[in-house]
């Protein structure tokens, strides 16, 4: 009995020693040096480049595909899949007159001679024609059909050269095909046999590891839905050889778990485009800033508060200006975001070449705010809240998306600062689907705090033009949620759209920004920054600050010295 117990005890101790030894060995183990593991906070629902576009999908596909042209990190249009950006100066862009008297443009592009799909089939104009066919079909499920509606025709010169005829000459003609994502005709034609089912049958989702779907430096080789995506070097890639043999992108939706995986070595970096929020990154930097290279890239994500201009209180410009003077955006940026968020004066970021320094700037000035409110007929009462002559309180609702701790704090600071000047603001937090699906769409808000993404030099046609106010009459289309109806603003956005001369266009942009800052259909707040958390040995990652991700230049990433 005693001997049996001793033997049992020894066996348990032996097993425990074995387990501990294996764990210690695991702790000392390392991933292969030619592999990079990246953490992102959202899984891409689809790998098709044009169906249900998402930031996560763009990030992954940026390693495996290339657009014809794209905005680079300097916000200049560059060629990727084509050999040269079509411009009027180089003769590849030719304006012409349309039968209705308007102006169209023909763009001639040449596909890169070395471009081949991952199965070795060359990328040719057949693929371009097929892509146009898919994009023009209203049943195909392509999200951004506006691009294809503008294409009158595509004429093929040879296997690599084609001319796209567009029905409108716009200032951004050279970037107008940036979202024309060439599809592999030799593989996708079969899935497109029933256009209405194409978005369900596309190989990008039914067989995402098919090499023939990709022509970038990498191709997707393995997908574990909801977990990770594996990309490996594409042998048919024609450009600079990428440094890593394999890149694994892990989806870790919980930010605490994302951080833990980074610290545990489960991942090497967190994607700036779709990783930590700014406040999470700042908190991380406080404890681990010395161990990583942390970069904060200002972006085009414009954080602002829409004012419902049909609201009787907000219809008065003086009240809107008082709201601006009543909040200390500089202090909020410093205190909550360590100065990493650029204070906005209009919807155009300082990094954009059309940005105007002459735009009215609303520095924090509560005294000025009170003067404006008095002039607007809102007088301070005994309870410090303001009332008008009819006795109505100056009270407004601030609608915003729920669940973001950082934004909740900012809203509470606004609420407190507005209270000091006599404006009572109630915060109404809603889920994003309620906020955008119901509240904004039906314009059932007073003030609405949110952000949107735009592109470099993005003409605000859908957000400022008066025919874009959502209403019953237009089926609630348009994004002019404030209900901004200004003939001069209409004239300027229409003029910008077709103005090719940069100096003249810059003037129009400056006028529009000044008008916006004066009229304040929305209260400009910040341009958000994306935090990139990178290991010290990884170099060459260049954040862009716009919707085209840093992974489009993944072949420039390299290892300096890995510890």
């Amino acid at each position, binding site marked *: 009995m005693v001997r049996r117990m001793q033997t049992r005890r020894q066996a348990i101790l032996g097993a425990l020693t074995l387990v501990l030894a294996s764990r210690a060995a695991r702790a000392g183990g390392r991933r292969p040096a030619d592999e990079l593991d990246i953490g992102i906070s959202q899984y891409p629902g689809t790998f098709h480049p044009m169906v249900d576009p998402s930031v996560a999908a763009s990030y992954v596909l940026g390693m495996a595909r290339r657009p014809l042209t794209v905005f680079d990190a300097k916000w200049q249009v560059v060629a990727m899949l084509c050999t040269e950006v079509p411009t009027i100066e180089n003769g590849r862009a030719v304006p012409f007159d349309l039968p209705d008297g308007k102006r169209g443009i023909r763009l001639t592009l040449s596909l890169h001679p070395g471009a081949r799909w991952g199965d070795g089939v060359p990328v040719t104009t057949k693929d371009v024609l097929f892509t146009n066919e898919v994009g023009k079909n209203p*049943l195909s499920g392509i999200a951004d059909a506006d691009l294809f509606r503008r294409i009158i025709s595509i004429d093929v010169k040879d296997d690599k050269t084609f001319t796209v005829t567009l029905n409108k000459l716009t200032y951004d003609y050279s970037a107008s095909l940036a979202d024309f994502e060439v599809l592999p005709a030799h593989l996708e034609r079969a899935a497109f046999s029933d256009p209405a089912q194409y978005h369900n049958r596309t190989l990008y989702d039914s067989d995402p590891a098919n090499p023939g779907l990709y022509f970038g430096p990498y191709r997707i080789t393995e997908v574990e839905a909801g977990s990770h995506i594996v990309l490996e070097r594409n042998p048919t890639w024609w450009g600079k050889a990428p440094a890593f043999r394999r890149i694994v992108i892990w989806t870790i939706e*919980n930010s605490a778990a994302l951080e833990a995986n980074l610290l*545990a070595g489960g991942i090497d970096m967190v994607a700036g485009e779709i990783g930590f929020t700014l406040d999470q990154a700042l908190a991380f930097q406080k404890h681990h800033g010395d161990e990583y290279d942390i970069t904060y890239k200002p972006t085009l994500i414009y954080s602002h508060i829409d004012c419902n201009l049909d609201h009787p209180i907000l219809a008065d410009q003086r009240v809107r200006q008082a709201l601006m003077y009543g909040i200390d955006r500089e202090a909020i940026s410093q205190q909550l975001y360590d100065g990493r968020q650029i204070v906005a004066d209009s919807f155009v970021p300082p990094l954009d070449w059309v940005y105007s320094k002459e735009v009215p700037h609303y520095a924090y000035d509560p005294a000025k705010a009170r003067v404006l409110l008095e002039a607007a007929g809102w007088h301070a009462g005994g309870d410090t809240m303001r009332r008008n002559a009819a006795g109505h309180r100056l009270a407004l609702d601030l609608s915003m998306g729920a669940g973001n701790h950082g934004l909740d704090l900012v809203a509470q600071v606004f609420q407190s600062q507005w209270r000091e000047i006599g404006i009572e603001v109630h915060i109404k937090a809603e889920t994003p689907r309620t906020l955008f699906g119901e509240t904004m769409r039906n314009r059932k808000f007073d003030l609405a705090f949110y952000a949107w993404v735009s592109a470099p030099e993005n003409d605000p046609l859908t957000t400022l033009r008066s025919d874009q106010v959502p209403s019953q009459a237009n089926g609630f289309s348009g994004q002019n949620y404030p209900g901004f109806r200004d003939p001069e603003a209409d004239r300027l956005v229409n003029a910008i759209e077709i103005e090719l001369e940069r100096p003249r266009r810059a003037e129009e942009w400056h006028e529009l920004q000044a008008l916006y800052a004066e009229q304040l259909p929305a209260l400009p707040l910040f341009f958000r920054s994306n935090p990139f958390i990178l290991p010290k040995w990884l170099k060459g990652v260049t954040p862009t600050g716009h919707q085209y991700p840093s992974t489009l230049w993944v072949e420039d990433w390299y290892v300096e010295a890995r510890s």
Partner: protein
Amino acid sequence: MMRFVAARLTQVVAVSAVMSFLIYALIGLMPGDPIDLMLSGDPHLTAADVARLKALRGLDQPLGKRYLAWAEAALSGDLGYSRLYHKPTTEVMLPRLGNTAVLMGTSFVLALAIALPLGALAARRPGSLLDTIVNFVSFAGISVPSFWLALILILVFAVTLGWLPAGGIATVGDGGFADRLDHLVLPVATLTLASIGGYLRFMRGAMIEALRQDYVRTARAKGAGAARVLWAHALRNAIIPVITIIALSFGSLFSGALVTERMFAYPGMGGLIYDAILGNDFNVALAALLFATVLVLLSNLAADIAYAATDPRITYR
């Protein structure tokens, strides 16, 4: 008994039908749609695009008409395509079901294997050191939030010690049995510790009650040893109420554990159902929730049959 089972199975069908309509209606009545959200995220999307995409997916049709179309297809075995993943619903669900079965099944078996004997032993001497420890573990397990527990385990075993992976389902390029086991340890530990408390309390309470009964005193008086009294006499009676708890827990096995799955980046049913509901992925949400519903109903039926098997006093007509 057969008539009883047949009647209950009919109930299962009826309840499932009602649930399918309720789930469909609730998801459909949620304000907003993910396609509407795309407008704010994509500067090139127009309202016309949004309308076209909704029409393509049949979202411009009345809710009732959409439900009837779904029901007709489902009855012929066609569960449709996932709106989020653009794949057949079954293709989306099956891998996640497998992952969840492994995770939840392992933690379920482990929790029972620890809780039932430990609860029985603790009941033997209420107030003893073992009973005190068992009570503490029970209350800790019930009280501690699973996300916090997950985070602590990750911080200790993955970040500080580096003994175990912080998340995921397998190492890329490996995926062997040992590697998968490695990745299961922390999430299984989290779920087991979180669920063990309830089973411990039930088992302990039921055993204390059973040990007070006259037949136990009689067994002792007849010379039965302590072990025989505990395992052969008291346990058989004490296990009956515990079967209810086990059966109800079994029903929720395949609906996953959302919080744990998110903390460990484990692709299971919990996350799938959550994403499907938020993404208005009707087909996947319906299939997954109905599956969970049917499982709960069937496990209740199994519990009732187990009663009859365990307690000869119980009969069904």
